[in-house]
């Protein structure tokens, strides 16, 4: 083998077309506005304040029991329906489920006194009742993602609404551990650092501050741009990247009262794990969860650790409990659409009859 041939093996061939496309895409993405997210066909069936209950009808309905999806209060829920090929909602409607998606909406200053109690009872519980009424069924499967999972678990433990199945994905239950430095957690737990005054000063925590909070969890955050540059020639990847990029920067604002309650009851006192959390005058004890339970964690989750989800497996009173780990990150679980596949595998046998 001569030197030229050897060099050709290691020195990349310059593909002008590919490189032009790559850099054109990068420039376009930087200059152009964020893309519009095209949701799965849907209709709004209930609105309360800023929240909306969306109904996504199944393409070919196979399962009578519908699914209601709840996302975190911290981010916007369209990550679960971020366009064709990367939509959990679309994946489930294609598999024959009627899907309801509850969008909390971004609170304004007028919602500063909205507590977790209000969110859980007056918003989510009411939404579930309305979804059940709309579906004409006698029960519903509740799917909670991230903090939406925590809220779903709390609600399931206190409500008498017929929740037939409960799916919790990347759900934080134990708040004594986390991805932030231990000393920060200690500071939160011993009251050295609290957000009460801050929350009161703002009323409703602006979305920019929430984004800053996420950035503080991983201050150096250049991997998305590196990934884009690396694969900017791939149109499909670029589209997904743009949707993901839009969602990442599009955080929701947070009602001050709920913010304070979350940090006090969950991060400081860890009341949910201790069974001391009281919501709407009802004590949220996880052992009161009796419906079939499916808990899903992500092995490379940088926001919610697997250890934070695990306690619910021991605490829940359900006889039918399943735990599964997905090889991926917190967001990729939703964005790859894989979640719909896993949820369907578990739900399909549990969504047939109204037991």
């Amino acid at each position, binding site marked *: 083998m001569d030197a030229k041939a050897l060099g050709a093996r290691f020195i990349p061939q310059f593909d002008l077309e590919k490189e032009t496309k790559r850099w054109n895409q990068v420039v376009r993405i930087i200059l152009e506005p964020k893309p519009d997210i095209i949701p799965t066909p849907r209709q709004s069936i209930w609105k309360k*304040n800023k929240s909306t209950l969306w109904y996504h009808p199944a393409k070919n309905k196979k399962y009578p029991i519908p699914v209601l999806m709840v996302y975190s209060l911290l981010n916007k829920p369209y990550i679960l329906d971020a366009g064709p090929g990367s939509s959990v909602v679309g994946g489930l409607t294609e598999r024959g489920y009627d899907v309801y998606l509850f969008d909390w909406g971004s609170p304004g200053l007028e919602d500063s006194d909205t507590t977790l109690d209000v969110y859980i009872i007056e918003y989510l519980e009411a939404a579930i009742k309305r979804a059940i009424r709309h579906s004409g069924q006698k029960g519903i499967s509740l799917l909670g993602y991230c903090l939406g999972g925590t809220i779903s678990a709390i609600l399931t433990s206190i409500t008498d609404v017929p929740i037939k199945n409960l799916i919790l994905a990347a759900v934080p239950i134990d708040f004594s551990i986390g991805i932030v430095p231990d000393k920060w957690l200690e*500071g939160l737990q011993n009251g050295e*650092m609290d957000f009460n005054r801050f929350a009161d000063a703002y009323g409703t925590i602006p979305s920019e501050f929430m984004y800053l909070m996420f950035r503080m969890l991983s201050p150096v955050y250049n991997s998305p741009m590196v990934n884009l540059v690396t694969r900017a020639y791939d149109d499909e990847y670029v589209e997904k990247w743009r949707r993901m990029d839009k969602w990442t920067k599009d955080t929701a604002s947070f009602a001050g009262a709920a913010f304070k309650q979350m940090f006090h009851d969950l991060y400081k006192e860890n009341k949910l794990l201790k069974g001391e959390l009281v919501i709407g005058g009802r004590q949220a004890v996880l052992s009161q969860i009796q419906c079939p339970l499916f808990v899903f964690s992500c092995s490379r989750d940088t926001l919610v650790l697997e250890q934070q989800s695990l306690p619910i497996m021991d605490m829940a009173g359900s006889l039918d409990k399943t735990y599964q780990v997905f090889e991926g990150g917190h967001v990729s679980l939703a964005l790859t659409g894989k979640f719909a596949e896993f949820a369907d595998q578990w739900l399909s046998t549990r969504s047939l009859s109204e037991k």
Partner: protein
Amino acid sequence: MTKEKAFDPFEGYKRMAEIWEKQMNGFLYMLTDNRETVRLMKAGLNAHSNYMEILRKNQELMAGFLNIPTKKDVANVAKLSIQAEEKMDLLEEQVWNLQDSLGQLNQENVELLKEAVMNIQQMNTELKKASIHMEETRKMNAELQELRKGLVDIKIIQVNLQELRKEIDSLKSIKTDLKHLKASKELAQIQNEIRELKEEAVQLSDIKAELAEVKKSIQAEQDNEIKMDKELVLSSAGPSKGE
């Protein structure tokens, strides 16, 4: 083939960037994982909160002077519309509850009506049966009346029969009396006959006595004849003995 194996500088850049990012984040994590950072954050947060409080207070004050609404005022108005919406929701839920209960009531009423219709049908059938029974009862009643009449007749007949029986009894007694009477007549007759018989017996004994006398007289005559015969025999036997 060579293209597939070709070295892609972007892949290398990506891996390097990933490693660098991870290491930088790890470094920052370790750098901030101490109480001093927590204290610093607390101080920063408090200072910022303090600043925001003063700012908001001044905003409100200035807006008050200028007589213009602040975001807080707008939020207060928005709260009113949220409250109205909540009330609407509550009303809607109450309407649903009413709808549901009415629906349930309707269903119950329909079931009740069905039951009532069935009952009426059953009652109708039973009424028909009852009218037939009534007709039969009437007939029976008429028959009973007839029977009663018959019974009265029977009673009359019974009375008549009793009277008849009494008559028969009296007749029987008469008969008995008659029998007695008859018996006494026969006795008298027998006695008469006995008397007659006695008389006849007396007559017979008289005849017997006469016969006895006759017999005696005959005997006596016979004895006389015998004696005469004997004397004749004796007289005739003497000569014949010597022959």
